[in-house]
């Protein structure tokens, strides 16, 4: 189907393809690498607050994710696509949900589970139902329950051999009815997972992604908005018993989840109505788990739970086809 073009002596060939012949510059690697860029502020904040140990965890998780991705693709005789950035994101996000003094071996195990079971066993990029990083974290919650809930105060990991064990703001809220200062939460000066603590760092990354056009504003704002409204109802009823909406937004994984996990393209709905249902139900679930569940934090399970409904949401929330229901005139 090729033909020599007219101009003499040239080797110009005519290429044929079906329309459209013009495509956007966006590509999967471009999107993924932008997400990685957007997570850098959170990584920097985690290193600032939790020290070198944080960087080590990040490196171990990313490394394991890449090796796992490579091994599965090699074994399945699939093209090796470890440079597309998606495995880096999984490793990075998993690391950011771990406590700073988490076991290195545990981190390796969690990353392997996230990429191997959470993603590759489903068929690789695009086919997984659950967010791989959150699935990895859920696996570690089951296998390392004590480690996963042993938190250290920021800036103590390196200062002392025995890092000061402490509770996270959410756990203090739940079990001791103590509320951490909002300013500390916003900056990240609290105990917690590496990347969850600093609201400001996550916001910078999230807004950068929004600016780049790679996240749909509905998802993070819908999720955070639901958390704020739903928790606000109880706060207004009894401010002494229930923490304020701002506390809910700033504490725990709400910010990281809203900007980087709810927005995961593969595991969130594609239709506008489906996206609204997804974030609203997930937001309510997160608050319900936090206030009345057995665990201090509900973000992870709220998102994983809703991930399972995505195929159903996509199927039953089709956009209206243009002209459907419109009537002809005489």
């Amino acid at each position, binding site marked *: 189907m090729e033909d020599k073009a007219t*101009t003499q002596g040239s080797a110009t060939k005519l290429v044929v393809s079906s329309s459209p012949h013009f495509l956007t510059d966006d590509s999967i690697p471009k999107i993924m690498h932008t997400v990685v860029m957007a997570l850098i502020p959170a990584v920097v904040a985690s290193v600032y607050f939790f020290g070198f140990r944080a960087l080590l965890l990040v490196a171990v998780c990313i490394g394991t994710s890449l090796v796992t991705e490579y091994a599965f693709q090699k074994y399945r005789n699939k093209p090796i696509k470890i440079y597309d950035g998606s495995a880096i994101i999984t490793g990075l996000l998993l690391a950011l949900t771990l406590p700073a003094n988490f076991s290195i071996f545990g981190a390796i195990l969690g990353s392997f589970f996230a990429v191997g079971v959470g993603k590759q066993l489903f068929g690789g990029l695009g086919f997984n139902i659950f967010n791989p990083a959150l699935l990895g974290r859920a696996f570690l919650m089951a296998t390392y329950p004590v480690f996963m809930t042993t938190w250290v105060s920021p800036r103590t990991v390196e200062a002392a051999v025995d890092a000061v064990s402490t509770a996270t703001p959410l756990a203090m809220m739940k079990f001791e009815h103590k509320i951490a200062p909002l300013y500390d939460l916003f900056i990240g000066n609290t105990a917690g997972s590496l990347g969850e603590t600093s609201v400001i760092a996550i916001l910078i990354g999230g807004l950068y992604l929004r600016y780049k056009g790679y996240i749909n504003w509905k998802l993070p704002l819908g999720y955070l908005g639901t958390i704020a409204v739903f928790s606000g109802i109880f706060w207004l009823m009894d401010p002494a018993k229930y923490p304020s909406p701002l506390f809910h937004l700033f504490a725990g994984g709400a910010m990281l989840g809203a900007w980087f996990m709810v927005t995961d393209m593969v595991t969130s709905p594609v239709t506008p109505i489906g996206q609204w249902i997804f974030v609203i139900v997930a937001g309510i679930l997160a608050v319900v788990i936090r206030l009345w569940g057995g665990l201090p934090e509900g973000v992870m399970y709220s998102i994983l739970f809703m991930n399972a409904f995505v195929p159903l949401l996509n199927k039953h929330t089709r956009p209206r086809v243009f002209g459907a229901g419109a009537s002809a005139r005489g």
Partner: protein
Amino acid sequence: MAIKTFDRGIHPSYHKELTSGGRIERAALPKLVIIPLQQHAGAPCELLVKKGDLVQEGQKIADVKAFVSAPIHASISGKVKDIDLADHPGGSRAMAITIEGDGLMRDWVAGAVQTDISAISADALRDIIREAGIVGMGGAAFPTSVKLSPPKGKTIDTVILNGCECEPFLTADHRIMVEEAGAVIWGLRALMKAVGAGAGLIGIEENKPDAIDALDKAVGSSNDIRLVILETKYPQGAEKMLIAAAMGRKVPTGKLPLDVGVVVNNVGTAVAIYEAVNLKKPLIERVVTISGNGVTAPKNLRVRVGTTFEEVIGQCGGLKTSEGDMEVLNGGPMMGITQSTLTVPVIKGTSGITVLTARQIKPVAYDPCIKCSSCVEVCPMGLMPYRLGDYGRAHRTDDLKAWDALACIECGCCSYVCPAKRPLLHWIRVGKLKIREEAAKAAAKAAKA
């Protein structure tokens, strides 16, 4: 004036500045033209000449009795050199009349008489339009006389002229509106007369301010015709999108614009009608944008129907062969048809010849779908292209029908935005083809039984 638009759609890079500033030039008279017998939607024409005949410029050389069709005229005077299968810019081979020119040119303007529209009947107008072989010049080439004959019981209240030209690179309609605004308005009034519509609208994207000015002046103070300024967005010029944007009327699924009282025509078609009535000139030439980064000197040319792409591109300085491999399109980059040879002729529906260079040619490899929702967010028809693509690829006709594949207008927005570079529209086309094949088989079976 408030800027109107439709839901969803895309903003590709337009590259219109390559040709939007220069006046339309007249292409050199070709020595040879290849005129296919099928240049319109509908029945192909039958020959009225034979090999060796001498023909005059503007002489009817092929016609057919079928209602949905349009006659074909000699675009140059000379001798019928050959009648045979030839490469067609629609992508196949079709019967075509080859005429060797004698170098003579007819002066159509000399005999021109400005006609008063109120003096011609609607039927007479339709006859002139049919006899002049006029078809929709935006690209689909649907016979205009058929469009102007709504079935009994349907009233048309509005004629919309499509001056959107939302395809990247193309500026032929833009230049027509700037340079021939008077003829555009005259043609629109003729169209209104032909269907008995009281109102005329001209839909035009805001990126053509000089065309808006020119038309505004030509309309003057009359209030039967109104300009509608539209957002620069693709596919603003798709019939259904244009009607929705300009008038807020939605054409029901599977219905036609006339079902909502509207007829849409291209601005070039309006000028062709003006020339057919006043100059007695059939549709034998048209304005073509020759553009793209692979063309040395992009411009708008008034080209005789039947002139080969090779000759037309040659008059624009030829291909920039230093750029490597190229993709030559009949039309623009979004909906144009790719050509495997440059011996194909310009036909009535050729709005542009776009030449893309190696750097712009899309990759063949694609990644898995990451459900990013971009295709759903841009589909102007409200479909779910990622799903239809998978169904189409697997020939799952029941699912294709259930998810409204047949509503697809093939604008290509889904493939354009896909970050995984999945050829979604291609697969959907395959799916639609399979649906039609199945329907044809079922019909044949029913006929036998």
